[in-house]
C-alpha cells in the first residue's frame, strides 16, 4: 500500500493513530540508553524524586507518537524523511501503564520550488492519556508529490 502524496495532505486534515500502552520495562529500556535520569530509569529511586514515581522520558513520548504516525501507513513509499521538530511541550508526566493516544493534524503543506516531485508538510501532534494531554509538538516531513512523480 502506498501512503499519502503531498496533494493528500490538505490543511486541517486529521489522522488518528493506534493507541499504545507503555509499560515499566519499556520506559526503563529507553531511559537507560537515551535519558538516564533516576525518575526515568529506576522505579525505586524515582519514588524520592520530584515526580514521586517512575515517568517516561519525554524523548520516548515524542518518538512513540511519531512512530504511531509512521505505522498508519501515511508515509509508506511517499515519506522522504524529516528535517526537524518544533515547539515540543511536555505538559504532564507519562507513567507505567498509561495508554498514549496520538492525534495528528496537517498544519501546512507546500510544494518545493526547486523540485516539483516533492513537498514539505508540517504536522501538529497531540499526545494524550486517559487523564488528558501529556505532550504537543510539530514535526516537518518531506513527502513525494504526485505532480512531477508521474503517479
Amino acid at each position, binding site marked *: 500500500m502506498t501512503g499519502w502524496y503531498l496533494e493528500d495532505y490538505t490543511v486541517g486534515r486529521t489522522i488518528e493513530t493506534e493507541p499504545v500502552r507503555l509499560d515499566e520495562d519499556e520506559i526503563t529500556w529507553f531511559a537507560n540508553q*537515551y535519558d538516564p535520569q533516576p525518575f526515568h530509569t529506576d522505579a525505586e529511586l524515582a519514588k524520592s524524586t520530584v515526580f514521586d514515581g517512575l515517568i517516561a522520558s519525554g524523548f520516548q513520548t515524542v518518538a512513540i507518537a511519531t512512530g504511531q504516525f509512521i505505522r498508519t501507513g501515511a508515509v509508506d513509499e511517499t515519506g522522504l524523511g524529516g528535517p*526537524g521538530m518544533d515547539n515540543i511541550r*511536555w*505538559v504532564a508526566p507519562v507513567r507505567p501503564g498509561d495508554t498514549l493516544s496520538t492525534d495528528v493534524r496537517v498544519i501546512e503543506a507546500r510544494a518545493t520550488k526547486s523540485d516539483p516531485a516533492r513537498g514539505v508538510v508540517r504536522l501538529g501532534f497531540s499526545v494524550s492519556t486517559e487523564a488528558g494531554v501529556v505532550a504537543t509538538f510539530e514535526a516537518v516531513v518531506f513527502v513525494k508529490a504526485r505532480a512531477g512523480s508521474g503517479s
Partner: protein
Amino acid sequence: MAARYLEEFSPGDTFATEPVTLDEASIIEFGRRYDPQVFHIDPEGAKSSAYGGLIASGHQTIGTAFAQFIRLGLFAENSLGGPAMDEVRWFAPVRPGDTLNTQVEVLETRESSSRPDRGIIRLEFRISVGDTLVSSFRTTTFLRRRPSEDAA
C-alpha cells in the same frame, strides 16, 4: 563532573560529551520500535531509498546526545525534569559506524519567580560526525538552586 546548581551555570559555558558510535544493530532496534521506515530498519531496502543506505532515526540521534550530556553528571539530582524542547534540526544523515560528538552550550539561566528553590536552564545541543553538523536542538530544564544553608 560534580553536579551543579543553577547558579553554577553561565550563558556561554560549553561542555563536550563523551563520543559515542552508533552501530547497525542499535539503529535497527530503535527504528523497529519507534521509527519503522525502510531507511531505518532494512539495510537492503534502504539502498533504494532516498538515503542510499541505512540511517539512524533522528529521535535516536537526539536521545543519544541528551544521554551523553546527562552522563556528564552536571545535572544529576538537581534536575527537576524538562518542560520543553525547541528547534530540533536534522541536517545530515547518521549512518552505522558514525561517531557522534556533542557540544552543549548554556544559552540562558533564569530564576523562577514563583518557586524560589529552582529556575530554568536552556541548553543548545550541537551534534557532529567528523566536521559535519548532523543535528542540533534546544532544551529547557527545571534545575535546583543552591539551598540557602549551603551558601557558606
